[in-house]
């Protein structure tokens, strides 16, 4: 029984982290039909930026938790949005209208470039920024203990999810984006400045990825390669939930999070395998994911 609770709690914590990571990826796909393989690198950028900033902060400037959290947010959003802007304007824009797979390869190229850019800037030694994590202590839920920081991540994830939902459903920009998701050509015909929307979307998606990384920085050791491992799992989440759907990303995150928690507690070697097995099972019943849309036919 204890294990079941442990699995549920672990699953929830992991799911909230997964949602943060996957949200940006699915939004970009939904609007632009681009699967950004470099999303993991944006995550890593966020993690590195946050880790460095926290390192600078805790090294004599101060030690207030809430300022540290603010620093994480600001740094991650800034670097994510900036990198997103450069990537979209500088590279992707040149390739619009080309094959979807060509775009995938382009994002792969950006992944290669970013991985080394990070190595050049931050080197290969691991970065630690555990202070916020330590400062938030541990809490007891029944007989189990959970770290305060992890609980906060759950909260952040829910907040981000709500913010995204609000933004897409209630704001003008959000509605425009939804119309583009639904049908790009019709939107363009109705006068929507799709290009500008693409830039905004990509920057937001990138910022989301970076936030996920920034928030995770205090929990991990930030080293080269963290980004790539993330994209593999994020992809499973996004596909399970349905490419382009935020709700899908949330539900997909829950499913994958639980699956992973089950695996960790029972058969740790098969962690990734179980995640993908679950994804494959979902795809058998819903080939486009739980909330995905079928692609329009050609003739």
């Amino acid at each position, binding site marked *: 029984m204890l294990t079941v609770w442990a699995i549920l709690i672990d699953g929830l914590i992991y799911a909230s982290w997964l949602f943060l990571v996957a949200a940006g990826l699915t939004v970009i796909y939904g609007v632009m039909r681009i699967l950004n393989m470099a999303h993991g690198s944006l995550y890593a950028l966020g993690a590195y930026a946050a880790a460095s900033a926290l390192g600078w902060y805790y090294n004599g400037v101060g030690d207030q938790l809430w300022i540290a959290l603010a620093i994480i947010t600001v740094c991650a959003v800034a670097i994510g949005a900036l990198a997103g802007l450069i990537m979209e304007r500088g590279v992707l824009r040149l390739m619009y209208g080309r*094959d979807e797979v*060509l775009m995938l*390869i382009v994002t*792969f190229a950006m992944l290669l470039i970013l*991985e*080394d850019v990070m190595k050049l800037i931050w080197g290969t030694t691991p970065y630690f920024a555990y202070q916020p994590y330590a400062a938030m202590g541990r809490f007891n839920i029944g007989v189990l203990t959970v770290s305060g920081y992890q609980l906060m991540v759950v909260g952040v994830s829910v907040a981000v999810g709500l913010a995204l939902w609000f933004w897409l459903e209630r704001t003008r920009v959000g509605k425009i984006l939804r119309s583009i998701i639904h049908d790009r050509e019709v939107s363009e015909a109705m006068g929507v400045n799709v290009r500008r929307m693409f830039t905004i979307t990509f920057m937001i998606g990138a910022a989301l990825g970076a936030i996920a990384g920034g928030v995770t920085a205090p929990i991990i050791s930030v080293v080269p390669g963290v980004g790539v491992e993330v994209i593999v799992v994020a*992809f*499973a989440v996004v596909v399970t939930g349905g490419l382009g759907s935020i709700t899908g990303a949330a539900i997909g995150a829950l499913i994958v999070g639980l699956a992973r928690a089950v695996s960790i507690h029972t058969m740790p070697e098969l962690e*990734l*395998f179980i995640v993908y097995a679950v994804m494959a099972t979902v795809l058998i019943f819903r080939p486009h994911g739980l909330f995905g849309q079928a692609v329009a036919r050609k003739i």
Partner: protein
Amino acid sequence: MGLQKSEIMLVLAAAAITLLSFVIPDWLAFTTTLAIASALVVLGVVLLMRAGLVSFGQGLYYCIGGYAVGMGGRFLGINDALLLIAMGVVVTVALAMLLGLLLTRYREIFFAMLTLAFSMILYGILVKSQNLGSTDGFGVSDWTLLWFDPDGGKGSKTVLWLATAVGLVVALFLNRYFGSAIGLACEAIRENEVRVEYMGMSRRQILYINYVIAAAIGSIGGSLTSLAAGHVDPTMAYWTISGEFVFIALLGGTGHVAASFIAAMIFIMVRTYAVELFPNSWQMILGIVLLLIILFLPKGIWSLFTRRRRVGS
């Protein structure tokens, strides 16, 4: 270039390599072997590309081929190189036939990412397997090839001959394949799926066949690599390796079988130096070159040498 002509060129090239093998230094022989082995995996990527799919996960079968050689020697006491390669192919084909059923259902992006995922799954499993040396991998036991018993230097000439022979056979087969009805059907699928179905061909079946063949030759490439290098480790399934194969495939283009071998050779030679000189920028250079290739040479470097006959606009 008629069919027969290009095949003769391939045979001549193989003969030339064999003759030169007696005089070239060991490191060059090793590099050439690696190039041929890599080219085989790359040809698998090319095969799928011609049908409109990109596989970011050929490393899966490359790794299986390598570990088959390693495990065959270490756990089963099998020493004949050809037998080891065959073992790898058998396991690979069995797995590919299974995975192919799932993968061929999906469109390009799904396919690409799923292949990546599967190779990373293997990576994850191998990294956590203590019996197989985890991240360190393990060494390949001494092996024999038919009546040869290569001694010293892991038989670098022998493995080169083996690679050349195997490479030639695969190259000739694929050359025929590309020019056959099914080869043309692959390009047709990429071009116009609807028409393909209305002509009576099944996109799925054609993709499935291609996937299994690509897996098989990827496995052979992995086996040859491990025979030459004398070592196997999980990085053979890591995404960066698969990415390199995609890079080489784009470098060489999908026009001709020989292009993959040439591109692989260029790549490996450049990489050997670059990784020493710029260890932290090598991937970035790859990324930039990849972008340039996509922007300016969509058909790969090979398109510089052959121009498609274009009539009208």
